[in-house]
């Protein structure tokens, strides 16, 4: 059962071979067994989850099931869920019980999915290792001395260790794709505006996008079908006709059945294969590209000349927005407030000094600095100009190719603490992922092999705006021909 796809689980639920209560309990039991070592979940509320599961069973019995009805899903602790502790991995919100549901949560609830629990994450999604959480670091199920990636590391580890059939995460600079790669699962960041940000605690508003994390491209498509959709409460939500992201997954290939991806042009920008890329990761990605060619795809040359500027631009824009977004955490209305303070200014100072961790403070400081009078033009405005150049690079590249492929992360998962003392080294982990956020483009990561220490390697597939279905189709065809996505870490059986 732990390797069953969402489609298979839905079928078993529909055929009453298993109930949602049993499925939920099964995963709760796995969490109870595996989570103490992995620390992937920060909040589990069995009674609440099982109540939802019972409701799902009733719905299935009444013949009113939808796709995902009765399926347990792990929620990154950044999504507000009514009645659930929603902490965003921070002491600042360690006592915050959300009085409302995020749009994504509403949609999953409406579909009859079960909230399996809230997953650990880097504090306020700021990190690439899931080590900055107030609740302690998440460990990689493939090797518990290593990080699972971040910031959605809890969701990634939950799926990798088969504690959850699927999970939801958020991606501001790679926070879905990078942990998916480092934990050997699949994750997709949709086009900016496809998934509503309402109720998703903001890190960097112009970059944040929610998305699914699961074992396969097919599962991602089914999850995205529920998560995507216009929401009037998010002004950046896009009003488009509903789309079935699974519609072309198994579209019959024209012509040669062995080459179902004939006609697909894949760009592999040389900028993604240069210095800094681990040779183990490079080799796995090259093998994957060869596999795509075998399936009929054609490899074309594309350039992303401004790729090297994406990390510097990102680490100006994201902290700038974060410094403002996190101002609401002031100890006045909810969340953490210091106990001893002399006056108002002292209360602000102490509450924020004690409530935020070091990485969050670092980014608030950077963001405050780049927005300050006299520095705004040199940093923030300049970064915005670079952002436009990067987006233009993609526009030009997508005239030559349909998908861009390359490594998701330059290296496999590193050991806990290895990069904790060097923020720049940590930030370089995002080198292949942040560009998609800056340009608002969709991108995903799928497992494509193993590297150093037997750790998973992720292949990044990126597409033009609104080409999620095409990306998923290519990934699905790859997964029909390979089994990297079916591998699971030892010790989780």
């Amino acid at each position: 059962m732990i390797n069953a796809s969402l489609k298979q689980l839905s079928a078993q639920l529909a055929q009453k071979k298993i109930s949602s209560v049993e499925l939920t309990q099964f995963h709760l039991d796995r969490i109870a067994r595996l989570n103490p070592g992995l620390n992937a979940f920060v909040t589990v509320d069995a009674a609440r989850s099982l109540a939802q599961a019972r409701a799902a069973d009733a719905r299935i019995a009444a013949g009113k099931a939808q796709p995902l009805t009765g399926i347990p899903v792990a929620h990154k602790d950044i999504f507000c869920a009514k009645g659930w502790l929603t902490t965003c991995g921070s002491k600042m919100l360690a006592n915050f019980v959300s009085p409302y549901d995020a749009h994504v949560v509403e949609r999953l609830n409406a579909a009859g999915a079960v909230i399996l629990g809230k997953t650990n994450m880097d504090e306020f999604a700021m990190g690439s290792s899931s080590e900055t959480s107030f609740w302690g670091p998440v460990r990689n199920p493939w090797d518990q001395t290593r990080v699972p990636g971040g910031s959605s590391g809890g969701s990634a580890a939950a799926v990798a260790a088969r504690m959850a059939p699927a999970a939801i995460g958020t991606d501001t600079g790679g926070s879905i794709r990078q942990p998916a790669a480092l934990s050997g699962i699949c994750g997709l960041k949709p086009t900016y505006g496809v998934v509503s940000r309402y109720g998703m605690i903001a890190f960097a508003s112009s970059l944040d996008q929610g998305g699914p994390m699961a074992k396969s491209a097919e599962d991602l498509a089914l999850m995205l079908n529920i998560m995507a959709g216009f929401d009037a409460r998010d002004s950046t939500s896009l009003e488009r006709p509903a789309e079935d992201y699974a519609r072309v997954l198994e579209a019959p290939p024209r012509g040669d059945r062995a080459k179902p991806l004939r006609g697909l042009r894949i760009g592999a920008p040389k900028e993604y294969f240069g210095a800094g890329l681990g040779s183990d990761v490079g080799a796995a990605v090259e093998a994957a590209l060869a596999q795509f060619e075998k399936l009929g795809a054609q490899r074309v040359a594309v350039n992303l000349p401004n790729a090297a500027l994406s990390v510097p631009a990102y680490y100006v824009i994201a902290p700038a927005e974060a410094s403002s977004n996190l101002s609401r955490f002031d100890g006045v209305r909810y969340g953490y407030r210091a106990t001893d303070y002399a006056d108002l200014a002292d209360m602000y100072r102490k509450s924020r000094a004690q409530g935020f961790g070091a990485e969050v403070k670092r980014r608030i400081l950077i963001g405050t600095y780049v927005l300050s009078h006299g520095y705004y033009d040199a940093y923030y405005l300049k970064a915005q100009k670079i952002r436009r150049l990067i987006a233009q690079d993609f526009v030009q590249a997508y005239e030559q190719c349909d998908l861009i492929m390359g490594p998701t992360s330059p290296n496999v998962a590193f050991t806990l603490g290895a990069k904790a003392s060097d923020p720049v080294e940590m930030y370089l982990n995002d080198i292949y992922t942040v560009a998609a956020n800056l340009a608002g483009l969709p991108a995903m990561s799928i497992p494509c092999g193993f590297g150093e220490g037997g750790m998973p390697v992720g292949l990044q597939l990126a597409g033009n705006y609104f080409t999620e279905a095409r990306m998923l189709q290519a990934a699905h065809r790859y997964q029909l021909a390979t089994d990297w996505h079916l591998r699971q870490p030892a010790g989780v059986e």
Partner: protein
Amino acid sequence: MDWETVIGIETHAQLSTVSKIFSGAATRFGAAPNVQACAVDIALPGVLPVLNKGAVERAVRFGLAVGADINRRSVFARKNYFYPDLPKGYQISQYELPVVRGGSLSMLVKDGEKTVRLTRAHLEEDAGKSLHEAAGNAHSALSHGMSGIDLNRAGTPLLEIVTEPDMRSAEEAVAYAKTLHALVRWIGICDGNMQEGSFRCDANVSVRPRGSAVLGTRCEIKNLNSFRFLEEAINYEVRRQIELLEDGGTVAQETRLYDPDRRETRSMRSKEEAHDYRYFPDPDLLPLDISAETIEQIRSELPELPQAKRERYQNDFGLSAYDAGVLTQSRENAEYFEDMVNRLGRPAVKACANWITVELAAAVNRAGIEIAQSPVSSEQLAWLIVRIDDGTISSRAAKDVFQALWQRENIAVAVLSAPRPSLHSSVKSAARDDIDNIIEQLGLKQISDTGALEDVIVQVLAANQKSVEEYRAGKEKAFNALVGQAMKATKGKGNPALINGILKKILAR
């Protein structure tokens, strides 16, 4: 030294939308603390702003009314600072690209017409309110030393209207503020209630030697919520700055508050203490794009504006600048006037204007109300003029009727928008009945019966032979004496015009 005062004004006009600018919560004034603050207003984690189109529409209406440019694309920015009544830690405002740019406002001041140029007008949200525990504070739930936060006002839509430094005295500043106040109410974008904070002004005041082209260092006096405070604060501030400079000191650029009890301004924060607001475009809101069609639609729905009306009243109706000014002080005044003119026709224009600007304006002022609340309706006043015109009563008696009508409490006030009216006597009219009943009750009806008047005059002439002889000898004054006697004989109710005519006719025999 001869000093010149230079004033610029920033006004926060609360836009009259039902809900807030970025949330669905109500904007009604006076609710219990925090009952009109939703998740967005209290800035829960994860919530997002959604722009209220009604606020944009009102901002555009204002821009068109002052002849400004409407920016087809404007941008909302975050103004970052910490304060407990600012839940997000930033205020959403417009910074580099406001919705309205330029424009001007003209007004009558004692030296004639004055034009004040506008720099810009931009949309923003209001903050909440901090309630500090203090003796006499109605919010007794606050225990000693604590402050309460009421977020009902947080997110209320404001239009901040900024002028160039074009005013040269407190009087001009007040004239500008009053004209702006009248305009925002006229075009229906703000209720103008100053006690409730719907219209508040900040004054930027500086002085310089007369003739100097360089502006002096300015001080900003914040949150003046009455015209009187605006005037007092500016006058105090001008004196303070002049005294400082004449004593060899310098004015420090700072933000000051006006204390109406002490009638003085005092320092709130200096330039050095000024915040770095770290403005940047709000990534939660897309740039505000306004289509040409939307602008034209709003333009087509604009009412005739006070200045245009004032000019029309002067040019077309031949009214004085003063009368035209009073009649266009508010939209209600103009509607009252135009309703009367509609009923009585063009020949009665001057009579209508006179009655409104003299008798009605005096009564309204005494009562401390607006013409819109007048117990005497425009239809009633029109009937009063009809009764003067048709000789039923004299102008003198009409004033008594007006007073009686004003004081009667249970007068049915005719609706201004009632179907348009001909004042035909066969038409049933409650207003006409009101007038006629009062004339009847007060016994003010004139004697216009020629036969009856002739009888009286014959008797008067018989009793005043001396005056008759003097008149015939060429003494014109004697005629007036005879008219007076005839009026006396009719107890003042004789129609003076008829008496004049009959006297002349008989004397000419």
